């Protein structure tokens, strides 16, 4: 082994320890990441009998739920992400402002990070259900006379709205914590200088903080958009059959219809959308080399 190493790397002896330490994780990623990713595309291009064909993709595209699921998912992504970014930014600024009890604010804002999608969906069911908390409060205050049916399958945009609220509650913390970490790496002098020269909060955010925060913004946006494309349990808990999202279609084809090929076609489509979104963020928010830590 040693002789071989010396021969292989020329004059200097190579230290193999890091490679040995990395090997198990690389092997695992090959078997449980690269292989299934490749086989998702193989499955999508086959029929259930294993013959090569575009049939599974055609079945997916021809399905009545195809455009429904894609438009609902994209609508949710497009609405949720900007709101979530604004809320995450506001939370991060509050944490970074070092008000009294900073760690308490951070702890509260980060709570949903450990809460499951399904539990979060049900939490908001208790609020939006017809005899739920929101209607109870609205009626008590006399704002509405009779409770609004938030979860009505007939009003698409109300359903989208309540899922957006639930998703903002559930998944803002991951963006927030990345932004807080990024904010802490900006020297206080920069924002203080801007403040001394009379920059308003908005100007400071827009001209000083955002440009310096770009690497964190990039990571936060990519992570969050990819996760938002997979929106699943909150939609099922809140909207039931009122609308359908892409991951719901994926699981229906896999479990109820028992056709792994069409399910894989859906999975492949979500994968492609995630890759396009990632490239889009990298293109819109390029990070200069010197900014990369």
């Amino acid at each position: 082994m040693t002789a071989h190493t010396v021969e292989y790397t020329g004059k200097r002896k190579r230290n193999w320890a890091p490679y040995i330490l990395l090997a198990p994780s690389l092997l695992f990623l090959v078997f449980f990441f690269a292989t299934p990713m490749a086989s998702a595309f193989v499955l999508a291009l086959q029929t259930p009998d294993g013959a090569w064909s575009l049939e599974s993709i055609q079945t997916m595209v021809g399905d009545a739920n195809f455009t429904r699921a894609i438009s609902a998912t994209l609508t949710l992504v497009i609405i949720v992400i900007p709101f979530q970014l604004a809320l995450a930014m506001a939370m991060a600024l509050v944490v970074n402002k070092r008000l009294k009890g900073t760690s308490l604010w951070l702890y509260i804002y980060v709570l949903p990070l450990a809460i499951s999608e399904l539990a979060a969906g049900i939490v908001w069911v208790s609020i939006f259900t017809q005899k739920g908390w929101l209607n109870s409060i609205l009626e008590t205050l006399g704002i509405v006379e009779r409770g609004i049916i938030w979860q009505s399958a007939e009003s698409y945009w109300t359903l989208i709205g309540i899922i957006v609220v639930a998703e903002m509650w559930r998944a803002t913390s991951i963006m927030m914590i990345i932004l807080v970490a990024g904010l802490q790496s900006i020297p206080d002098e920069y924002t203080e200088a801007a403040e001394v020269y009379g920059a308003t909060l908005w100007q400071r955010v827009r001209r000083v903080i955002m440009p310096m925060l770009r690497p964190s913004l990039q990571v936060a946006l990519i992570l969050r958009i990819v996760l938002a494309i997979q929106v699943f349990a909150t939609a099922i808990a809140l909207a039931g059959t009122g609308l359908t999202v892409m991951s719901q279609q994926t699981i229906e084809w896999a479990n109820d219809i028992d056709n792994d090929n069409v399910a894989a076609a859906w999975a492949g489509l979500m994968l492609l959308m995630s890759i396009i979104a990632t490239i889009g963020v990298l293109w819109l928010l390029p990070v200069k080399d010197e900014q990369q830590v």
Partner: protein
Amino acid sequence: MTAPAVPADGTQQQAPPPSRRKRTPRKVLNTFLWYASAVLMAAFIIVPIYLIFVSATTPADATYNYPKSLLPEGIDTDNIQKFVNASGVIDAFWRSVIAGVITVVLALGIGAPAGYAIARYVFRGRDGYRLVVLSTRAFPIVILSIPLAVTFRNFGIYDTVWGVALMHTALALPFAVLITSSVFVSIPRELEEAAQTLGCSPARAFLRVSLPLALPGLTAAAIFTWVLSWNDVFAAAVLTLRNPTLPARILTSLTQASLPWQFAAAFVMLVPSLIVIFIIRRYLLGLWGRVVK
């Protein structure tokens, strides 16, 4: 950041930092607005959690009472007992716990050595490996459960906790590598080297010096990994049929279940999450802060 070369008094006279300026009414209003927004956003996070606790502990026959009282009228565990005694729930609970534990062991067993390697060694391919790990983290990993279900059927681990745990390990591995590497980076390598000059073998130096210091951080990483597994709905629903984990079990009866049952389910899923986030609260920023880049 660093101490100024000019005496502190001199610099302060030239440009007083904003915090030392006079308390103008505008400044007071400003501070008030910061606290008000901090409180508002905290309420947005906290109130729904409080409401689900009240909902879950309201007697089933009072669930539809109207208008609701915001204060709980006593704690009633009837709903929770009914949920726990529903068929398969206890088994599903234990399966979730076990799948989480297997995930922790696998993800840290495979990920921690890799994290140690990128924290301690400089070697060719280190940046490449980091890039692979960072990009797998921003990858819709759960949809890999579709092709994995096919593979697992062939290997006879479909519908078992092992299959679920392997999938969850793929989900958690990038986090495990990045978190453990940030933990090991924070421990000075000089300590290990000192132990080695005093006659310890490298392995012994690691076990007796670095490992004890890394233990709190590694524990936080383990807890975070466990909760990733505990919260997953999608992959568990695809990979199990008769032996679901708790979220998968809840998902299958979600549409037919009564509201009190759903509320109790959310309650049972929430409690461990809240405990977990409380235990690891001190590490969250460190974990994520360094995970960013």
